[in-house]
């Protein structure tokens, strides 16, 4: 019970700090909306091909916009040496990681949920047809992205070029999750429920999340302390 309370304490602290400054969420949201707008001019919204690739476009936008939030996760602890105080506190590294991952998940998901209606308008896609399945896929893929982003944010926190290093390290690992999310989202936004071959992508997405969450929880203490 105490562990859950500590996880919530860390998550609430990160969310409160971000909502007061809005430095990451504003940048991420602006980026997502601008890219969606620019892509909508590049592709004909009436063409079937555009709707077929819309899932891919959407996740490219989410991956890039998400990185702007994930970059700030541990970087927020650098001014005033706050990371020292967190590491010194009698809480396991896994608690710090989970609290930060949950806060990042909420922020990235919020940007995605705001971007989704805009995407529907610009690309002439009725994305609400399989609403709950789409929400489930978004939650799974976003959690995968968040877990990888948070652990690498901890790893790169003391590196000078961390803003450059984080995407370079995370994107190659995220490829399977992003491919799965793209395939599933492309079908769902066109009104097709998950089934057949797509079910394998869903299982892969769940497996990805479980595997990397467990690995991150095990490794985070070593990442933070060495």
């Amino acid at each position, binding site marked *: 019970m105490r562990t859950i309370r500590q996880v919530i304490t860390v998550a609430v602290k990160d969310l409160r700090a971000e909502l007061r400054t809005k430095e990451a969420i504003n940048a991420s949201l602006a980026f997502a909306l601008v890219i969606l707008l620019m892509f909508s001019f590049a592709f004909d919204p009436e063409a079937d091909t555009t709707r077929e690739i819309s899932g891919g476009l959407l996740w490219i936008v989410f991956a890039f916009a998400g990185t702007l939030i994930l970059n700030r996760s541990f970087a927020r602890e650098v001014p005033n040496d706050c990371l020292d105080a967190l590491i010194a506190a009698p809480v396991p590294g896994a608690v710090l990681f989970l609290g930060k991952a949950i806060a990042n998940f909420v922020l990235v998901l919020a940007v995605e949920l705001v971007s989704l209606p805009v995407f529907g308008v610009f690309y002439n896609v009725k994305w609400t047809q399989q609403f709950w399945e789409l929400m489930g896929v978004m939650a799974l893929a976003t959690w995968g992205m968040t877990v990888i982003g948070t652990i690498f944010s901890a790893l790169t926190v003391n590196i000078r070029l961390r803003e450059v290093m984080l995407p370079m390290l995370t994107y190659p690992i995220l490829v399977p999750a992003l491919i799965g999310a793209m395939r599933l989202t492309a079908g769902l936004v066109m009104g097709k429920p998950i089934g057949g071959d797509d079910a394998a992508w869903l299982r892969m997405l769940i497996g990805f999340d479980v595997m990397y969450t467990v690995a991150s929880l095990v490794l985070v203490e070593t990442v933070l302390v*060495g």
Partner: protein
Amino acid sequence: MSAVAVDGVWKYYGDYPALRDVRLEAPPGACLALIGRNGAGKTTLLRTIAGFSRPGRGKIRIFGKEPRDTEARRMMGFIGHGISVYDELSALENLKLYGKLYGLADPKKSAMEWLERTGLERVRNGLVREFSRGMRQRLAVARAFLHEPSVLLLDEPFTALDDRAIAVLQRLLREGLAAGKTIVMSTHQLREALELSTQVALLVRGKVAFDGPCTPEMVQDPGYVYARYGEG
């Protein structure tokens, strides 16, 4: 049992040994002043004792426990070069946050008590980013003392403090020593530190060049240890 025991600790940065076979002990209630020139290894030693990094060789024990042990961490309070409080949160929110992480029974009550003791109760709801430097430093002191640690690790605690913050810190340290707390502090402000110290250790290029009780000669002439045991 020693409050802090450092036994044959080596710490490397790449191939460079920042700490070389350091052996120190501080009994409960002692105030150990770590002195030495810049780059002597004082901060590295304190950070290794605090558990921020592991030694390459040797052992560190806090009341017999490894520094990363949860109980050992609960017993330690650390003030480093940074104030370790969040600019985007208020003073009260910062202290409540740490109170919750340290598992205090009533984080708000403890936070209010320490805001009062450090003279920050009137600005408790103000964001830290709006605080003056002195106020931020007093909040850092409140943060380190909040959970009533038995061992205080202070890295140059008097550096850049204003008069009021120095007075607050010295009063709290004296009260802590009277209550049996153990203090290990690195410092260049020899006069302020030696007034409180019971024990002095001089680090020279990562090695302990002197470790012994703080004598009246040292208090009267803060340069005495450097002149006698240092490299001139």
